[in-house]
């Protein structure tokens, strides 16, 4: 019997005692005894449930780690796709810079160079 089953058993017994009291209307010491038994069984069931939930959390540690690894891989892949897009952009800007250098236009060289540097910095 695991912790959950033990908690269920305590809770079921407490419910049975409550139903017994509600149906048969015990009085005096009998009613008090039944009430105490039922109340304490409920409390024990609750305490056992705390332990059962703790066990579920502990048992989930490996799965949590594995799924986090899956998430990290998905994020990394998305990052790589963004990097690929940036690489294409950089290739285009490199061509523009090359064109500006060939044309010997200082303004165009500075502008194209600046765009390329910005793209490379953002890429890094």
């Amino acid at each position: 019997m695991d912790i959950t089953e033990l908690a269920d058993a305590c809770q079921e017994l407490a419910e049975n005692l409550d139903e017994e009291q509600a149906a048969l209307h015990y009085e005096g010491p009998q009613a008090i005894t039944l009430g105490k038994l039922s109340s304490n069984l409920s409390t024990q069931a609750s305490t056992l449930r705390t332990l059962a939930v703790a066990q579920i959390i502990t048992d989930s540690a490996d799965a949590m780690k594995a799924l986090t690894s899956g998430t990290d891989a998905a994020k990394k892949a998305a990052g790589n796709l963004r990097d690929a897009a940036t690489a294409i952009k950089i290739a285009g800007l490199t061509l523009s810079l090359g064109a500006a250098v060939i044309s010997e236009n200082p303004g165009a060289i500075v502008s194209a160079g600046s765009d390329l540097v910005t793209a490379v910095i953002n890429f890094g």
Partner: protein
Amino acid sequence: MKSRWLIAIILLTSGCVTDPGAVTSFSALAPDASKLHSLTTAYADAPNQIRALDVLNYTAMSADETAKQVNARNAQVAQIDALHVILVNYMQSLGSLANNGLVQTSADTKDVTDGLTALSKAKPDLGLTPNMITGIGDLVTLLADAATSFYRQDKLTNIIERSEAPFQQLVTAEKKIVSEGVIKELQLIEDRTKALAVVTHALKVNAEAEAEKSKTPQEGDTGVKGLDPKLQGAGAADIASLYLLQQSITSNLNNLDLQIKAATAYLIALDKIAAAHTVLYNNRDDLLSKKGAKTAISQLTPLVKDANVALKALKNM
């Protein structure tokens, strides 16, 4: 692996059109963390509720022990939240990876054609014609689309494949926490509340009988046989108080009923989410092609619908 290359070739020849629909509809199912949190906080507070319902002081658990239980459970709530965030992050990360908007290849390759155009003007002897530049741009776009589509599909296949088992384990864990922790605990409170209702009813009947007999309902011995003398001496004859207590019990039972229904709806949603991931897993080799997405979506649609109905019911509660 051969099938992945085959997919890459198919993507190349079919214009690299991808359909992220199956993955994004799964991703959109990620349940709002506040829904689970509202249930787990009820679980955390349950020992206080159980103690408050023990009006006859029958239970042997001290106030300190109750506080320890509540503290332990509050710590668990933080851990359960963390577990839930892992599930949600995973679901959302798949949606992000599948998202076509992540890479705008046609916009990105415009930089290449702009660069080539500038180059052709700066150095005409290269012989780059506008048609050639457009052709190169189209080719770059096609290759970039093919590469990203293949890469995206390859990564999704791999990630979904290795995540199926842990995803199912964590959903099962969350279901157990809700069914074995939250629901059972709410039912326990419900039972204690009903037990208190029985006692309160007996007290009220007795008090009303005494009031009728003496015409002075606030005085005299109105105790109920079998009940703790402390309670009998604590003004149990106060009919108005008993009436209010009964009202409070009814209201409490109604709230508990709603919370149990909400938790049950959440379990249904989790079942559907788990099944939806299995659909992705079963179709993992071809989730992004038009045909593959259509197949997966047809299997996902009823699950998504049921999960949304359950989550909506939960929200309404």
